[in-house]
């Protein structure tokens, strides 16, 4: 976002030009390589904030430099703020790979923007937790399309000085009579509608919501209405993690959904914040490193995927970002917090199944309940209408 914001007008024009001239790329034709060649010398990846740290945010957290030294691949990291942004960036064909969440990965596979991955070329794939492998969001038609990175839930963050009692339910962020009016935040992306649906699943059982991403029109309308109520108490929506962090630090926002990494960064700056996993459960992400079907540096990308899933690096990423590492061998190496994997239940397959992982809603319901679910294009439109 940082660079994109500056390259406003002409970037938009060029991107539109590109998309208008050649937007039809067929799906699924690419095949996985059988052997790796020499490193190409550079690598361009799209990553979530905190996934590819080179020491520029905090000198203590730097695992990109070692990779550059070992592999000879210069890494160029582009931060994606939302899955929609990542999907759009991948469409440019400029990048070698992406750390995609489920709401981007399936779309990427369907559109043929990512190539199948030969997991035998990624030695550390063997160590990855079994329950992360061969899932709907990283496997299609029996082919693996990526290497699991890590996973976690979206937490509820609150200012411990201001918010009392400590919340244990998502209800506090949806309450239109909230005492924290104007100081509530929410994630600025259509996928956040799923958070409202998740809350309604327990708050209004009569709606009969079973899956936050498979909503009938009535269920969807209820979620949208709840979010329109929430809009009256929201002080600011966030999609840029640094903006959210600064809002919590200065106290203009005291309550709302977050990623653990934002809480960690704010706490490091002495902000009085804490996170909680509310009793209704949470939406979350399970991320996969995927290789672009137009990758110019596929060898470097394979080397990166093996490097980022090695226990030593997984330990650093998981601790820094605040998530469960995909490779459980990392758990013993997290010296700063030996209980990290217990806290994030990294090896607990049942806990994993309880999280409502980001997925792209479709007309053909994801949970197999029919063909009348509200598709993602409607979620996108509704999100603009919710914000008003």
């Amino acid at each position: 976002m940082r660079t994109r914001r500056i390259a406003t007008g002409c970037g938009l024009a060029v991107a539109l030009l590109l998309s208008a001239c050649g937007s039809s790329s067929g799906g699924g034709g690419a095949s996985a390589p059988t052997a790796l060649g020499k490193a190409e010398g550079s690598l361009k990846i799209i990553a979530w904030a905190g996934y590819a740290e080179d020491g520029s945010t905090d000198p203590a957290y730097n695992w990109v430099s070692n990779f550059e030294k070992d592999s000879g691949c210069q890494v160029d990291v582009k931060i994606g703020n939302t899955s929609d942004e990542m999907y759009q960036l991948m469409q440019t064909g400029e990048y070698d790979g992406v750390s995609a969440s489920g709401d981007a990965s399936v779309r990427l596979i369907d559109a043929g923007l990512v190539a199948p991955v030969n997991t035998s070329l990624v030695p550390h794939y063997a160590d990855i937790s079994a329950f992360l492998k061969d899932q709907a969001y990283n496997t299609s038609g029996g082919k693996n399309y990526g290497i699991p990175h890590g996973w976690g839930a979206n937490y509820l963050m609150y200012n411990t000085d201001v918010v009392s009692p400590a919340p244990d339910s998502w209800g506090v962020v949806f309450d239109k009579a909230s005492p924290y009016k104007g100081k509530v935040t929410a994630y600025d992306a259509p996928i956040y509608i799923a958070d409202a649906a998740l809350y309604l699943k327990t708050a209004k059982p009569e709606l009969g919501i079973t899956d936050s991403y498979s909503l009938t029109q009535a269920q969807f309308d209820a979620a949208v209405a709840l979010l329109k109520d929430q809009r009256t108490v929201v002080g600011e929506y966030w999609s840029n993690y640094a903006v959210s962090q600064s809002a919590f630090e200065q106290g203009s926002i005291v309550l709302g959904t977050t990623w653990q990494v934002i809480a960690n960064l704010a706490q490091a700056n002495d902000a009085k914040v804490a996170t909680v996993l509310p009793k209704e459960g949470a939406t979350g992400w399970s991320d996969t490193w995927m290789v672009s079907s137009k990758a110019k540096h596929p060898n470097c990308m394979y080397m990166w995927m093996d490097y980022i899933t090695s226990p030593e690096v997984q330990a650093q990423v998981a601790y820094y970002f605040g998530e469960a590492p995909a490779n459980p061998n990392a758990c013993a190496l997290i010296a700063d917090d030996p209980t990290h994997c217990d806290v994030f239940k990294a090896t607990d397959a049942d806990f994993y199944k309880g999280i409502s992982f980001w997925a792209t809603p479709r007309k053909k319901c994801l949970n197999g309940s029919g063909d009348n679910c509200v598709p993602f294009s409607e979620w996108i439109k509704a999100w603009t209408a919710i914000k008003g």
Partner: protein
Amino acid sequence: MTTAIDSPHRPARRVSRFFDARPRWRLAGLLTGPALWLVVLYFGSLMALFLTSLYRLNDDATRITEQMGTSNYHELLTTSVYRDIVVRTIGVAVLVTVIDIVLALPIAFFIAKIARPRLRTVLITAVLVPLWGSYLVKAFAWRAILGSPGGVLDKTFGSSPGYGLPAVVIVLAYLWLPYMIVPIYAGLDRLPDSLLEASNDLGAGFWLTFRTVVIPILFPAIVAGSVFTFSLSMGDYIAVALVGGPTQMIGSVVYANFASNLPFAAAFATVPVLVMVFYLLGIRRTGALENL
């Protein structure tokens, strides 16, 4: 060496001879580059924008279908939230322009007519220096100023508008102020002091002179400045993201949909283009453009 230069067969010579004899080719050689730039990049991107706006996102948001149609425009015109956003954006642009005119007039007048030459240079530099800083940094700085609680304003004066629509107007008015001061200053610089003195000698007070002498002469300069402040405000999406709180403007909707629904983003992006076309047409009728 000399023989080489004098040689009639030297290629550069031949080229200049060729063009010397053919004035039309000369003109073509001069204009091809800029014309290509204008047609291919400038109109080309506008055309691409328009073409993209006729496509549609499929239901599952996985692909852009290339069946041409006006569904995006239909949606734009029939959904009330988009109308609200357009009205809000135009309102902000008008307000920012008015505020900038009101602020820029006395500042420019002081610089052009009252300040001594040395101070004038210092002041002009002071007006222009902020333009050298990154827009993003300045907008982020306003985040720290306006935050409520915890912002600089709040800590110093005990109150702050916080993030929201007023903050957007304040920040945009700050960001575009130099674009208003500079043309007005240039206009005032061209206004001879003798006119002001003559008006004074004929018994006109300050306001009468201002209304009947200064403003008519400055009008084209003010219009020129307003084109900048108005169009830049119409398209803004960064300031509104940083200090607008949950407020949406045209730019922020285009930005958000750029990632998720490109054809709709393109359709919505034609709205400020149209507004600016009407704005410029309106200005043309006043005759201000001829005097620039």
